[in-house]
């Protein structure tokens, strides 16, 4: 009969590279507050999580990021990620707020925010990112792969993380990762058969990070999948926490 672990907990420290906190304007969310999020993290065996609030993308980054900080109120297990709209926001003001709150990563949504992901639009923003060594998360559905490749390949000093890569994006996501060594991936939606093995075979384990996209997905299942994928202990440690910590300068 099948051997399954009915009380699975990860065997390594875990730093989740993609969660959200807070309610949504357009639908009910089963877990929408910090207390329940932390309880979920405890049950899943997750020590830390990189958190943003969708309000900062859906409506306004300044107000949304401030809302995020109100909600997480210095909770050390929730590491804040700010959303930014580089075509609208006051970048020096954003930079000041990031420094004030110790924020080390950003998230953008080029399609939703309606700007071409091109050097001629985002040049100053890219200059700032590079100078401050700030990585940027972009959801796969927000990426035009050709545009992204053309732009990012011209900026090898930048660091990007592809987020929420679904099987619909698979045909271009892996080749893009193979050709752009400054792009990493968080695997919250990589549910395809043997996806981690294929990914690590293609690009190595150093640019692969566990993410859950909680609460849009449950937090622990992808950890279970990772632990049953035949990864070495060092690969598991890197994917589950080490790579993200290094990217954020948080160890």
């Amino acid at each position, binding site marked *: 009969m099948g051997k399954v*672990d009915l*009380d699975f907990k990860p065997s390594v420290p875990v730093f989740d590279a993609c969660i959200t906190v807070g309610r949504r304007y357009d639908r*009910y*969310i*089963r877990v929408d507050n910090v207390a329940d999020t932390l309880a979920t993290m405890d049950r899943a065996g997750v020590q830390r999580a990189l958190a943003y609030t969708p309000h900062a993308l859906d409506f306004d980054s300044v107000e949304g990021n401030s809302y995020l900080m109100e909600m997480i109120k210095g909770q050390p297990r929730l590491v804040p990620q700010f959303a930014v709209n580089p075509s609208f926001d006051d970048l020096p003001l954003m930079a000041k707020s990031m420094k004030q709150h110790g924020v080390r990563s950003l998230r953008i949504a080029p399609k939703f925010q309606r700007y071409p992901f091109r050097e001629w639009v985002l040049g100053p923003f890219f200059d700032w990112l590079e100078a401050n060594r700030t990585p940027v998360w972009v959801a796969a559905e927000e990426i035009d792969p050709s545009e992204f490749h053309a732009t990012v390949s011209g900026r090898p000093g930048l660091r990007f993380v592809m987020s929420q890569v679904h099987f619909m994006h698979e045909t271009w996501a892996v080749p893009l990762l193979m050709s752009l060594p400054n792009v990493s991936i968080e695997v919250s939606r990589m549910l395809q058969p043997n996806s981690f093995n294929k990914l690590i075979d293609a690009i190595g384990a150093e640019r692969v990070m566990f993410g859950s996209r909680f609460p849009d997905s*449950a*937090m622990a299942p992808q950890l279970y999948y990772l632990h049953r994928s035949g990864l070495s202990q060092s690969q598991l440690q890197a994917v589950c926490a080490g790579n993200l910590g290094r990217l954020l300068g948080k160890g």
Partner: protein
Amino acid sequence: MAKIVDTPVIDVHAHVGQWGAKFRPASPKMYVDIMDAAGVDRMGFNCIYFDDERKSHNVVADWVSKYPDRFIGVAFGTPRHPDETIPELERAFDQLGFKYMKIYPTYYTKPVDDPSYDLIFEWANSRGIVIMCHSSNVADWDTLTLPTKFIGLAKRFTKVKWLLAHSGNAMRGQVLAVEAAKQCPNIYLEICTSFAEAGTIEFLVNGAGEDRVLFGSDIPLMDPRYHVGRVVTADISEAAKQKVLGLNAKKLLGL
């Protein structure tokens, strides 16, 4: 602390056939290797890629023959060629030993309760067959397999056991699927989906009952390890986990 148990793990939702257009490799060995890694004993798969039930059943039978102790054949029915359907379903169950069947209205492009499906449902009802059907409501336009459409079907065809694949997919569909299961004791819910929010397994089990929720993966679209993970890490009892993982399928399918 880990709690490794020997318990039947039966994946009731899988597809076979080649789908290179969607970047989906598939082979019997690949499936068995993944099953071993996931802790899955047996897997029931169908082939829905051809508009030809005979061809579909031959593909499935060929796969099953490679690992007959691990694989379960699942028939496919479509009303598009009605003269072919019933003879072929009878061949699938009576000669090929298939255990249940799949319908897929999305490819037929008509709703699951379209009268043209009655041919299949009447036959299945006469034999007490388990019919698994895609069920989904991710957005307002997604209604062909709206979970509440199955209520009328389940009340008309009471000897059919209706297995709602994906349990409606996203939360709005899950709510309808649970409602359907509450109204009809012959409606069951299968868990696989890439849309499921946190708390889905708990919602389905608490809503429909732990005896009526079944594990599936939708391989080759998704890996069974992820969906086994959804069950074993859910905030439900150990007994419920074992039922969802395979005891319910064993009972429903007579395995």
